[in-house]
């Protein structure tokens, strides 16, 4: 089908949550839970004179990926920054818990994160739901469920979304994706512009962006910015999901301690890339996705048995 081939090359970054879910899964396999017609939306936003969304900015459901049954949740980064709130968060928590508790349901959960963190208008509910989601992910992983985070949207994965990504079995990121807990503006506000200049986009992207996250082991796969790119990354990651046990946790602890040791003296991303032994670190920024993915797979720190 000609249309399908063109759609596979559509930008993940530019797409909506609903388009990403459809583009990631096998064609026509997606079934939505609590769809927009059910109007399960925020009970709070109208109090602030802010428009609601019929799905509260999160699309959840199930489908198949390369024939394998999966659950999927996609945050809509364009709606209120893809924020975690009472309803949007509960939809994700419920999905992960369903996989955790029911072996007959899909034992794979794909989290398409695109969020600046907690929704300020529902901050207490949002903070609680992030904690619930992280707990549910850890419990689901203990029960043998694979939880894969995919980051490549406009809002990135900051705050609670960054924390959520860190609790997943595996993380895929594109060059456009950014992963961190504290956002650039917040660091600048609290620590000063000398610490982190949030207006310097090259600095922000080289630090929080997908390439750096992949090189220093914060993401396990580098996806091209397209439906096909994330689909390929998801399938590759699902082929080698680590068991969640003491051994994995100890490996993660060792990995993070070694990373701190190795990069502790670095003051920017390029200096970290130099420490990694990359011959021309300045060239990383302009490298295309294919060449970069190949380079990353040859870096020891980027590939590990932890998480």
């Amino acid at each position, binding site marked *: 089908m000609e249309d399908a081939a063109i759609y596979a090359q559509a930008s993940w970054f530019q797409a*909506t949550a*609903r388009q990403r879910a459809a583009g990631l899964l096998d064609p026509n396999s997606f079934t939505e839970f609590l*769809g*927009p*017609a059910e109007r399960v939306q925020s009970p709070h936003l*109208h109090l602030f*004179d*802010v*428009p*609601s*969304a*019929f799905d509260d*900015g999160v699309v959840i459901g199930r489908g198949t990926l390369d024939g394998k049954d999966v659950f999927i949740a996609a945050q*809509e980064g*364009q*709606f*209120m920054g893809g924020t975690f709130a009472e309803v949007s968060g509960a939809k994700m928590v419920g999905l992960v818990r369903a996989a955790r508790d029911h072996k007959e349901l899909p034992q794979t959960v794909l989290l398409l994160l695109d969020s600046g963190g907690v929704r300020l208008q529902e901050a207490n509910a949002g903070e609680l739901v992030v904690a619930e989601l992280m707990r549910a992910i850890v419990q689901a992983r203990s029960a043998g469920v694979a939880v894969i985070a995919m980051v490549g949207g406009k809002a990135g994965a900051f705050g609670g979304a960054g924390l959520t990504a860190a609790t997943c079995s595996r993380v895929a990121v594109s060059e456009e994706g950014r992963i961190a807990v504290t956002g650039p503006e917040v660091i600048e506000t609290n620590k000063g512009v000398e610490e982190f200049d949030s207006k310097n986009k090259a600095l922000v992207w080289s630090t929080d962006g997908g390439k750096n996250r992949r090189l220093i082991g914060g993401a396990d796969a580098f996806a091209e910015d397209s439906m096909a790119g994330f689909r390929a990354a998801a399938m590759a990651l699902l082929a080698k999901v680590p068991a969640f046990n003491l051994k994995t946790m100890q490996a993660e602890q060792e990995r993070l301690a070694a990373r701190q040791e190795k990069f502790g003296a670095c003051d920017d991303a390029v200096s970290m890339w130099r420490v990694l032994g990359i011959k021309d670190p300045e060239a990383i920024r302009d490298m295309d996705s294919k060449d970069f993915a190949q380079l990353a797979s040859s870096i020891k720190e980027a590939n590990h048995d932890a998480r």
Partner: protein
Amino acid sequence: MLTLKFSHAAKRRLAGEQATAIIGVVASGNLEVLLERVLPGANCEIEIATPITGYDATWKAVIDEFVERFSPGGLRISINDGGARPDTVFLRLMQGCALMEKV
């Protein structure tokens, strides 16, 4: 929040078999349009929730033109607006009808 409701008798039922469709996102300058084939005959109801006041006449003009040109009979259309311009509203309504007309 301002809520606007319009009720029309369209010329005919909208073709196609889709029961529901959604298009667009609630974002700055954008809107989401939910279409549901739930009304009898050629009736059409449109409800709009918008944080921006003072444009009732513009909404009415856009909706009148849309109903006249696309005859969305049988549809309940619900809109969450993020401050979209009239041309964007019209585009989303057209896209929504195209989705509903799929067999």
